[in-house]
């Protein structure tokens, strides 16, 4: 499918602060894209520029192949869900949802029917005559969503849609939003600082840092093959280690000063139960934390402290126990590049037992 949203060389400064620095990316029609980055990385500014709430200093924004830089926000046909919902507090839920349709001068009958349908979709039945302050966080989020999609926008933008909702409801809403949006078939861009959320909800994620786009692509690709050191460190439960050559099977490669290690790269076994003794080295399980479905271990290996996981089903470990460790993989960090490095001892003469 064709590009729905395209940004080309966007720059934006606030005072002396560079919020966008040569930002370019595109989003395909019907895609659910997540703008992911730490706070202050310029992701909300990008969203607001797409919506028309901010003007870029330079660069072009295209929506459906039309340059929209000079089109006012209200004429871009965009639905927007604000971070704190921005519900009209002096209007009932029904009037909130109907507002956009009223502006479009739709007939009363049409508005009534559409509001009813939206309340069904969003599960807000029976709440139409309530005021925003009488709703829970999750309900407000649904109202904000219904209000944004009521005028049938082709593009929906959401600014930190789940930030103000407690953890349990958040998971539920995520799934619901994902399903609803794919049913509606609209293109959707959301901003988040929560990588778990981005990875779980988005078809494509765009990683931003200091006003620049670091990498964009499907979550699995960004997760497994980060393109920049920032992406490697930001995504996943990543830890940076500097003396990776002290890990067995990872000779020093010039140009790569440090490496990212994630818990899933590390395999822990009890001493004497090694499957690949030539790639193993000993470590100490300093602390052991219960994480529900697994154990998390503070592992001391070659003088470095990293986080590893351990299956609940395996033979139990006690804190302070010496264990046998194999590091399967590392992400080596160069100045501007990242390369995934497999353990060099694993593919040698010794086959892997299953």
């Amino acid at each position, binding site marked *: 499918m064709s590009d729905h949203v395209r940004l080309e060389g966007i720059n934006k400064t606030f005072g002396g602060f560079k919020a966008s620095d040569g930002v370019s990316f595109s989003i395909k029609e019907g895609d659910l894209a997540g703008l992911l980055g730490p706070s202050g990385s310029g992701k909300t500014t990008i969203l607001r520029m797409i*919506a028309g709430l901010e003007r870029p200093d330079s660069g072009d924004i295209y929506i459906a192949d039309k340059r929209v830089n000079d089109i006012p926000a*209200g004429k871009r046909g965009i*639905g927007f869900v*604000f971070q*704190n919902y921005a519900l009209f507090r002096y*209007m009932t839920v029904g009037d909130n949802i109907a507002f956009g349709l009223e502006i479009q001068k739709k007939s009363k009958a049409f508005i009534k029917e559409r509001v009813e349908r939206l309340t069904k979709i969003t599960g807000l039945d029976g709440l139409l005559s309530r005021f925003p302050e009488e709703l829970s966080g999750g309900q407000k989020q649904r109202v904000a969503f219904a209000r944004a999609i009521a*005028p049938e926008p082709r593009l929906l933008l959401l600014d930190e849609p789940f930030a103000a909702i407690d953890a349990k409801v958040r998971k539920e809403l995520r799934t619901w939003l994902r399903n609803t949006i794919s049913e509606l078939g609209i293109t959707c861009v959301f901003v988040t600082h929560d990588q778990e959320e981005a990875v779980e909800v988005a078809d494509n994620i765009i990683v931003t840092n200091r006003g620049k786009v670091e990498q964009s692509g499907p979550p699995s690709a960004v997760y497994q093959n980060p393109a920049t050191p920032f992406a490697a460190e930001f995504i996943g439960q990543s830890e940076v280690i500097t003396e990776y050559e002290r890990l067995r099977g990872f000779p020093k490669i010039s140009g790569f000063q440090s490496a990212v290690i994630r818990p899933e790269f590390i395999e822990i076994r009890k001493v004497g139960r090694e499957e690949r003794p030539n790639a193993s080295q000993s470590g100490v399980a300093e602390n052991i934390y219960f994480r529900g479905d697994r154990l998390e271990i503070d592992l001391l290996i070659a003088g470095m402290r990293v986080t590893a996981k351990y299956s609940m089903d395996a033979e139990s470990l006690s804190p302070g126990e010496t264990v046998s460790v194999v590091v399967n993989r590392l992400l080596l960090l160069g100045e501007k590049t990242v390369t995934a490095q497999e353990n060099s001892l694993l593919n040698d003469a010794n086959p892997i037992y299953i």
Partner: protein
Amino acid sequence: MVDKIVKCFLIVIACAFALLMLGLPLAAVATYALREGYGVFIAAITDPYALSALRLTLLTTVISVSVNTVFGLFAAWALTRFSFKGRSLLTTVMDIPFAVSPVIAGLVFILVFGRIGWAAPVLSFLNLKIVFALPGIVLATIFVTFPFVSRELIPVLNARGVAEEEAAALMGASGWKIFFRITLPHIKWALMYGVILCSARALGEFGAVSVVSGHLRGKTNTLPLHVEVLFGEFHLTAAFAVSSILMLIAILTLILKTVVEVKGKKEGASAIVELKGKNEGANAIVELNGIKEGSSV
């Protein structure tokens, strides 16, 4: 026990002080006004000069409050919705009437529009009379009451942020629609409160008006000026009778003010309860400060 004594003592002191400084003078006005009987009282307040002074006062108040309401709205909007160079300067300038003595304000108008003023040639060419006439009185009153409306609106507008307005604009709503459907419902109590304070000040303004009015009886005398004239001529009963009209208006204003305050606070309080999260918590504090500031003006 000691606590209780201290508490009683402080309450008694506060009450006694209020009674002595506020209640007694008001009572004095009422008794003096009526001490020669209702006949004299009625005669004093139905005197043609008194009636024309009342008319002039009301007319001045209506004009200056309307002007200040419109400009107060503009100013509050501009100061809270746009960031521009000189914004803090404008905020400071708007408070000048609070700092400058009204008499000086009046003198400024004489210097600008009077016979020796800068604008005199233009005014005489156009055959316009400002000083010692209604326009001068209105201008002086506007000057003195200028900040009242905007001062009430700015904290409320600051506290609420722009997200709701942005949401409406994104759906294609026009500026008017946004103002009347989104902004006005939120600021209406603050606006009303500002208008009441502005009116109270305009009704009672003496200093600036005294300088520019020229004290022409039946023509440029407002009620406070009329009281002064009567008092100066030793018509004490008449002076107090006319004062009692102003006092009555003041009491009505107070009642109105209290009603608006209570209503506004009720809605404000529920709005604060609704606020969650760090950011908005901070906003709520701003809003609370706004209410405090409002009641201390």
